[in-house]
């Protein structure tokens, strides 16, 4: 009880205790993103930012802050936190989608990698299209709301020898809000991917509706995201790990505990496989099979929807 009171003193409006490990970790997590602004007008809708509730208008800038601060160490941290398994997930994700045109009668694909930041997925896509399907024409547009992350991606593209300027560049980078994608015309994308990004969106329904808008008929929406571990015992271990070890790693490796505290909280807040599949369906997509595939007991999941 005293812990909760401490939380209130620090300005937390809402705490969702999870098991025995939740609340106690808050003491250190909020100072950074409580930026002293008074909470927006009472009637404004709120959304969750980790375990906190913030005004919808604030979430975007808060998420931006998080990713501004982690951009530099993003890949190192991913490797450390997941023991490198995130690479396997991403490989599996791309292999399964099998991007690239498969016959001479097909058009090359236009892939949109939403929240693609450092280009993890984008480079794998290009690589797969070229080496597996022998298609050098497939293009990837990397879209992110955060310039810092895109800059990292651009750096990597140049070091890998990809051209990033011009209409026909194999990979291009674009700062856009994923919920609206103003610069992307309707029915123009074959494959829209989003890996570990949709969790951070303020309005997920809107993002899904926008994805539906920009996809061509027959286009595929594919989402790789943290999800819920199905096995109770493994889930306990996973929760322990994510709430105790990951923020500490963030502090030691990236010098930034709060961002990683946000990371683990936002994972808990993200809907389960079934609920998210329902959301994809509600946006108008047809689910592929049951709609998702669990990776590593459901730590992550690949969701697939098709616009028909």
């Amino acid at each position, binding site marked *: 009880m005293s812990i909760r009171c401490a939380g209130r003193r620090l300005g937390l409006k809402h705490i969702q205790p999870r098991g025995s490990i939740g609340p106690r970790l808050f003491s250190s997590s909020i100072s950074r993103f409580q930026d002293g602004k008074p909470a927006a007008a009472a009637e404004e809708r709120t959304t969750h930012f980790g375990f906190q509730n913030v005004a919808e208008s604030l979430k975007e800038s808060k998420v931006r802050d998080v990713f501004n601060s982690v951009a530099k160490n993003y890949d190192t941290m991913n490797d450390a936190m997941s023991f490198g398994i995130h690479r396997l997930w991403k490989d599996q994700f791309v292999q*399964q*989608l*099998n*991007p*690239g*045109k*498969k*016959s001479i*009668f*097909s*058009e090359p*694909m236009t892939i949109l990698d939403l929240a693609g930041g450092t280009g993890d997925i984008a480079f794998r896509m290009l690589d797969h299209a070229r080496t597996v399907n022998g298609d050098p024409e497939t293009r990837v547009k990397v879209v992110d709301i955060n310039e810092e992350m895109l800059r990292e991606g651009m750096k990597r593209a140049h070091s890998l020898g990809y051209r990033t300027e011009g209409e026909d560049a194999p990979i291009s980078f674009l700062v856009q809000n994923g919920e609206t994608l103003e610069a992307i015309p309707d029915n123009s994308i*074959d*494959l829209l991917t989003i890996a570990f990004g949709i969790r951070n969106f303020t309005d997920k329904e809107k993002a899904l509706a926008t994805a539906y808008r920009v996809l*061509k*008929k*027959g*286009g*595929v929406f*594919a989402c790789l995201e943290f999800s819920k571990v199905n096995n109770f015992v493994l889930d306990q271990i996973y929760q322990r790990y994510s709430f105790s070890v990951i923020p500490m790693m963030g502090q030691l490796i990236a010098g930034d505990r709060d961002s990683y505290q946000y990371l683990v909280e936002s994972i808990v807040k993200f809907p389960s496989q079934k609920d998210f599949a329902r959301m994809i369906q509600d946006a108008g997509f*047809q689910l*592929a*099979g049951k709609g998702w*595939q669990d990776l590593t007991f459901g730590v992550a999941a690949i969701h*697939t929807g*098709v616009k*028909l």
Partner: protein
Amino acid sequence: MIPRTPYRTLRHGLRGYNIRARWTPLLPSYQFSRNDSNGSPFMNHGRSSFSSGATYTPEQATILSAALSHVPTQGFTDSALLMGVKDAGYLDVTTNLFPQGPFDIVKYHLVTQRERLGEFATSEEWKEVQSSKQRFGTTDKIRALCIERLRRNRNIIHRWPEAIALMKYPTNLQSSTLELFSLADTMWNITGDTTVDVSWYTKRCILSSIYAATEVYMTQDKSESFANTWTFLDRRLADSRSMGTTIGRMGQYVDYARYNIINVLRSKGLKI
């Protein structure tokens, strides 16, 4: 008192002996005669009571049937699926709608043909088949249904070994076994089978194995209009009858041995 019906029905195996006479009070809404295959609340033709969960949206059905039309040349492969997708007017990437790849084509074939078999049971053709013989028994019906279903494989029979390989794939095994069982269930439902005891399972299992064996035989059959396959089927059906008898006798023997053991123990003073 426990009736000894299970063994009797087992012994009768495929002959479709049913115990309705004995169990009628338990089945209140049960009003049709044994040979009537229509209008029972217990029978839902086409939709087996064991649904393998595969239902198709119109778009999925369009793509999969287009893909199936490419199977004779392409086999059960990714390229058949891709061609189906392109025929239906979608993109290369749309193949992601089918996470199981070529197995989704196999499953589509199995499900739609099973459903069509259900429709066949309500058609005039089926009535004609039934009235073609003086005495059209349960085994005759099963035989006719098996042949009817197997005939629907003839266009793709040269590619069927590929489908069997896909069905045996460990991740697909469960849904293909369930689908086979559903097929047997559909056939028994059409014949008007109404058993509610252990023989419900044995009948379906025996028929599943007969059907699967005949299907495998058919892939290698080079005879005129699959005449050898039908004689193979006849032999399996005859076997099943003797197998039903054997199972029945084994049941009797186990029963006998059980009573013997209990009586010996009782004679030693054990209060059972």
